[in-house]
């Protein structure tokens, strides 16, 4: 076991990938000598050179589009998008080209491109730097979307993403980049499948599903609830597409109550999808409506008021009260 931050764990995961697979390469803005704006690629250009750690022109469609071409030639590009809100110039390439290439070629072509996107708020930044656009991508068939919440998962999930034959978007919880934790670099252990959810804490009264930056918040809320004698089960979803509904369903069948928390706006979000599916799969187990905790239907607000926007422990506890009131 080694202790490291999430940022360092991704860095080490990328290093392991670059060492193992000569066809893998990193592409993005400022990822070379600077090491990326979050230093996630720190030191890699020195080890692997500019052909494999590619500082690109400042053009997101160009990054994704050329990555598709490289993948068609047999390469494994890992693209870094500098901030969540800047993925949209590349949105066309991701949704009309990358996601569909395997299907429209009748399975003849694969495009194993990985796109890393730091996402979420809580860092007091300017606009377009704090968004959670995962639902926009989850709606697109052909993409896979994962999001680690701890260093061990971060280390393994980035490598698993590169090995996957399908395009994978890795949403990285940017305000947790400096969260430390143990990483077993010898074995993924229970993290062998990046598309499976993990039950982080067992409980009997209600289930809280969270992912990425809100996982520590959900755990803290469960701890607070425990002081009031409430037993809350916490699930780290880990994969947003596909969603491991089996794990969520099994939990709800036990607890009878479900709260889904994410930073993204609730309207049209992942929480709504989970609520709908669980109502179909576990209707007779539910003691209360599925309750969503998330962002409001507004552009991500200015930094000085983002604390009022972001779900926190109290917002989750309030939802828990409502669920338990039925």
């Amino acid at each position: 076991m080694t202790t490291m931050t999430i940022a360092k764990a991704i860095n080490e995961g990328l290093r392991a990938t670059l060492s193992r697979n000569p066809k893998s390469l990193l592409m993005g803005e400022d990822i070379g000598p600077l090491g990326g704006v979050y230093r996630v690629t720190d030191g890699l250009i020195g080890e692997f050179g500019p052909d494999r750690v590619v500082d690109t022109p400042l053009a997101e469609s160009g990054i994704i589009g050329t990555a598709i071409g490289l993948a068609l030639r047999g390469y494994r590009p890992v693209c870094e998008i500098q901030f969540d809100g800047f993925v949209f110039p590349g949105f066309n390439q991701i949704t009309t080209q990358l996601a569909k290439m395997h299907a429209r070629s009748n399975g003849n072509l694969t495009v194993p491109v990985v796109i890393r996107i730091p996402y979420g708020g809580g860092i007091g930044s300017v606009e377009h730097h704090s968004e959670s656009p995962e639902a926009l991508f989850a709606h697109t068939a052909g993409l896979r979307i994962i999001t680690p919440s701890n260093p061990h998962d971060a280390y393994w999930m980035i490598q698993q993403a590169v090995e996957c034959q399908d395009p994978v978007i890795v949403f990285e919880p940017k305000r947790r980049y400096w969260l430390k934790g143990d990483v077993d670099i010898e074995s993924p252990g229970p993290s062998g499948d990046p598309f499976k959810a993990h039950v982080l804490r067992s409980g009997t009264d209600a289930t809280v599903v969270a992912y990425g930056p809100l996982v520590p918040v959900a755990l803290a809320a469960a701890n607070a609830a425990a002081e009031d004698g409430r037993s809350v089960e916490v699930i780290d979803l880990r994969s947003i597409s596909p969603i491991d509904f089996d794990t969520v369903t099994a939990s709800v069948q036990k607890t009878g109550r479900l709260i889904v928390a994410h930073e993204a706006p609730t309207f049209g979000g992942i929480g709504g999808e989970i609520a709908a599916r669980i109502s179909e799969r576990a209707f007779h187990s539910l003691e209360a409506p599925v309750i969503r905790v998330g962002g409001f239907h507004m552009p991500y607000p200015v930094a000085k008021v983002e604390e009022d926007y972001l779900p926190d422990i109290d917002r989750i506890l309030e939802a828990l009260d409502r669920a338990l009131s039925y």
Partner: protein
Amino acid sequence: MGAHLPATEFDGTAVDDQREADAEAVMGEPPAQMVQLLGPDGKLGLDPVFTPYAEKISPEALRGLYADMAAIRRFDVEATALQRQGQLALWVPLTGQEAAQIGSGRASQPQDYIFPTYREHGVALTRNVDLAELLRQFRGVSNGGWNPKDTNFHLYTLVLAAQTLHAVGYAMGIQRDQKLAGASGTPDTGQDAAVIAYFGDGASSEGDVHESMVFASSYNAPVVFFCQNNHWAISVPTNVQTRVPLSNRAKGYGFPGIRVDGNDVIAVHAVTEWALEHARQGKGPVLIEAFTYRVGAHTTADDPTKYRQSAEEDAWRAKDPLARVEKYLRSEGLADDGFFAKVKADGDELAAYVRRTTHDLETPDIRSAFANTYAEAHPLVAEELAWFEEYAAGFAGEEPAAAASGQPAAKAGH
């Protein structure tokens, strides 16, 4: 470079003249010079750079280029007819652009990789794509009827210009393959490959063209940008897309840009071969603007009479790419009536084959769409497929037309 032809885009309206004067003032030289070797009169001219490339085209090869152009024109007629008869949902005709497509496609090598847009049926022919397979997309039975790995001819891309970035990325992969092969000392067949990215005057306005040229320039990628300026982006003329000749834009990216007479198959072949050689030698990208004309409609759903004059079409018909080659071959005694009769018969045979095959193109089972959405197993796809199977099974024994899905259970075994 090359023969200096009138610079007019549209034969001299005041607006065009002003734009050209502006362009000349900015660039300090006549804005449009066009390489032409074989003129509409069937006379072969000289060019200091490209004539040596043209001289490599043997009489037999030139007869082949003519035969290819005639074949793809005949195919175009047949596909249009198939659409009119309800056998195709849509057709995208290429008539008028045969020389641009055949000339450039025949200049490519097997190891090269081609990224077409959606009108490059002539290039497809040169890459040995089965033309009946090409119709799958337009019959609605596939979004890509051929395996690009077989011919190095990529699927058609309908989102304009998206493929230009794929082309540059692919070329960046070739560069890395060369380094990997060099490092390991193993000969890598195909490492001298180059890439051609096709697009049109309309797509030239898309941001992806700009980004692809920036990336190609930054990394010196072995890619040839082949822009067919056919003068009309559906109903919008080229001078709405640009106020300088498109070939001049290459200057801004720092690589050569050449306007070639896109109706001159000899010049197109020569210029493309030169450009591919340039790319292969590690000298970086080239932009070729093939100055041509879409004689027909944008698609079978289009009506050009609403936006352009027939006189303009007539003027371009006088520059027909096939007629000038026929004149040349006949005047030089390189082909006789027998040759042209054979070309016509071969074209009719191709058309008959395409018609016959189109009727037989089988409708896929929607299960193949479930199977091909992801390369690896996916629980949601599996769950929805299982639901569909159960649903479809409920129609077992009914007449196919009774099935609500359009994919009746009776077809399940196909």
